[in-house]
Every structure is written in C-alpha cells, then in structure tokens.
C-alpha cells in the first residue's frame, strides 16, 4: 500500500526562517536555529518529505541554497525547493542542487510553457503545482505572487486547468487557515473537481487530530505543515506517533 505523507515546510526570507500567519511573517531564527531546534538527522524520522521555500522579495539564490545545504546535508528524504520560479534557470539551479522537486505557483498562470520544458527534462513528478486560496463572500478565490494578486478565473476551472498541466502533484494552501494551527480546511475536499494527481493539503494543521480526518480521505495523499512553533521540540515525533496510534498508514522509521 502506498503510504500517506507528512510534509514539513520551511519558509526562508532574507537570511532567516520565518513563521507565516495569514501570509504575514515573523522571524523565528536562522539556519543554525533550525539545525539546533529541529535536529534534522533525527527529525527526518518523523516527516516523510521536506519543502523549503524562498519567499524573500529580492532573491539571492546562492545564499538560499547554502542555507538549504546546511539543513539537508545529513537527511536522506525527498526535498522540494521553491519560490519565484519563473524560468528554467532557477528550476535547474534547484533541481541540480539536491532538490527532487520544485514548487511552482505564479508561473502556472504567467508562463506555463516552462512547465512542459521542466517536465520534458526532469519529468512531471518533479513539479508540485501550488495554489493559495481564500474564501470571499459566496466564493473562493485563488491568488498568485505570494497571495498578492487575484487570479481572474473560477476556482474549479483553475483546478481543472492545473490538473491538466504536466505536473506531478497539486498542493492547495488555505490563506485563511495559514499559520493559525486551528485545523485544516476539510470542507474544501467536497468542493474540488476530480483530480487525477496526488493532492497535498496545507494550512492550519496544529496537532495530530487535525490530520486524522484529512488523511483518512482517499482524496488526499499528503499534508504539509509549515508551523515551526507548533512542532518544535518533540512536536513532529508526537504528531507521527499520534497518527500511527489512530491507524493512519505512515512509514515508521524509528
């Protein structure tokens, strides 16, 4: 049986790792803080994958990649990098530096030709299409450019469009739930069109109970959480053990 996945997501901004809440960020610490507080040799026993996103306004790719290397040097789990991928050059820089996958957001709408370019070269399994959405009165909207600009199209139509692109997985992130730790948006699962690619749900995960209902749904392959504060210390270990006790099919590494 294919196992469910817990993905831990780190947000990098101008030299620091940050905590986001409804897309407003606060500095938590630098790479040394992460390495110290999230012992990555040990922590990879409790997560299945890692995503690291560069959300700096002015990107310094080499500095970002140095920070990434400090964190992943001794962990042998799948890695996704993302943030500002608009052309093949940055996609290559990521995929040729230990990243197995890249996460693409704005380019899905502005330059989706690069999706097939990347896919031809590295395979569609190397691309996660990520969508940020929020609820407005009577409707759901999707935003791009780090949730600053609304995509002018119907929610379902956008999802169908993305489902037909040459990507490997689809990640949907609730802006309303982002960083709240109050629970994931389970209602959204009934409002999605049929997707034939693995779906990753993100936004609002605070404790293991929030994961159970979502991971028992056949529609969801993985949950991503970027809540650094909720899962510090033994947080990720407790989360995994809590889920396994509740018969969620996750690999156990320890």
């Amino acid at each position: 049986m294919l196992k469910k996945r817990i993905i831990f997501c780190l947000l990098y901004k101008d030299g620091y790792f940050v905590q986001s809440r409804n897309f407003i960020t606060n500095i938590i610490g630098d790479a040394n803080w992460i390495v110290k507080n999230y012992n990555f040799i040990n922590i990879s026993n409790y997560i299945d994958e890692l995503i690291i996103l560069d959300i700096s306004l002015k990107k310094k790719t080499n500095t970002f990649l140095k920070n990434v290397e400090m964190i992943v040097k001794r962990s042998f789990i799948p890695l996704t990098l993302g943030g500002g991928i608009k052309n093949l050059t940055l996609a290559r820089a990521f995929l040729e530096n230990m990243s197995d996958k890249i996460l693409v957001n704005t380019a899905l709408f502005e330059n989706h030709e690069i999706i097939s370019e990347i896919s031809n070269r590295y395979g569609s399994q190397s691309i996660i299409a990520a969508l940020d959405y929020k609820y407005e009165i009577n409707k759901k909207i999707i935003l791009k450019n780090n949730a600053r600009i609304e995509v002018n199209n119907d929610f379902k139509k956008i999802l169908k469009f993305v489902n037909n692109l040459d990507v490997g997985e689809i990640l949907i992130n609730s802006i309303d739930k982002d960083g709240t730790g109050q629970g994931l948006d389970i209602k959204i699962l009934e409002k999605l069109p049929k997707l034939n690619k693995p779906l990753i749900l993100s936004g609002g995960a605070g404790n293991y109970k929030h994961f159970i209902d979502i991971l028992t749904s056949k529609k969801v392959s993985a949950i991503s959480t970027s809540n650094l504060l909720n899962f510090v210390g033994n947080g990720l270990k407790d989360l995994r053990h809590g889920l396994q006790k509740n018969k969620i099919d996750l690999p156990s590494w320890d």
Partner: protein
Amino acid sequence: MKKPKITILDLGYGNFKSLINAFDYLNIKTYVTNNKKKISSSDMLCLPGVGAYKTGIDSLKDQGLFDVLREVVNIKKRKVLGICLGMQLLCSSSEEGNIREGLNFLNLKITKFKSKNLKIPHIGFNSVKNHNFSLLKNVKKNYFYFAHSYAAKKKPLKGINFIECEYGEKFIAGFEKNNVYGLQFHPEKSQSNGLKILENFYKI
C-alpha cells in the same frame, strides 16, 4: 589495493547531487563523468535518471555511451545500478514515447500505470516484497520512496531475482541479473534503509 570507486553517469541533467551526498555519507568515493574512457575503465557504475525515457536514451546515444555501457557490463562484467529512470533504461523498451531501444540488459518492457481512479504519478513511500533480494540484506524496513508514472509490469524470466510493489497493479520495484541491478525507487531518498541498499550494492 585501491578502494574501488563508483562512477556516476552524467546524462547532462545534473540531478546526481543527492546520490553523491548519500555515498559521501557512507564513505564511498564517487566520480561523475560522461567520458567514454573513464566509463570503460570504471570499477562499478551507477545510472541515475529523471525525465522522459526518450530524453535519457537520446542523451546516452548522443554522447556515444550505448556501446561503452554494453562493453563494460556485458564483457567486462562490471556492476551497474540503475535508479528510477536509470533502471528503466537498462530494460528493453518503453511505452513512454514508444521507444523500442533501451540498453536491453533485461528483456522487460516499461508501460504506464493504467488503472482508472489511480493518482498518477505514483509518489511516496510504498512497500516491496521478497526479502531474498541481495540489495535488501540487513535492510530493516521494506518501504521506499517512489516517484514515477511508468513501470515494468511483467515478471522477468526465471533465474532473475526481483522485488515487487503494488500500485493498482503489481510492478517490478527492483531486479538483479548477474552484475546488473535496477531499482525503481530512490534509495538515496529512502532514509537509512535506502542508504543500506547503496552500501550493499557497493559491497556485493
């Protein structure tokens, strides 16, 4: 005697850093090249791979590596390990892009996952069966990280040792035929279990 090195074949996609990182951790020396002479004189080979089947085959052919690989593997009997697309390239053909000519060390055809309602690609950790597989010796857990849309479905001929996995249908997750080894999953991304596999390949 000099410690043998693993030659990692550079197909031009630069996606071998994780593999080097894993071998580094195991204190195993690697050498990345697309040079025919270096490949021809290598101790053992590793063929990583991502992307489309055709891209991989074209890259091998354009660099003139097809014959060198056949010589090293068939005549010099050096060990070779193909990972993910690399494993598929060791087989005979693929439905992806309708490519008839693989390296053909094994007569296995690669086809797409077909069952309806199945999410494609097959991504994540999945378990494999058959523990007599030499690469799985002393490996504690039997699940590994997969990320692919095509796979070998038919069982290979008798005498070829293989491991199976299931995703909608059964498929070949790994094989060993004399000095030729293939893994559909990514050992370099499968935690300590995967590292043990890489170490086993080196020591066999």
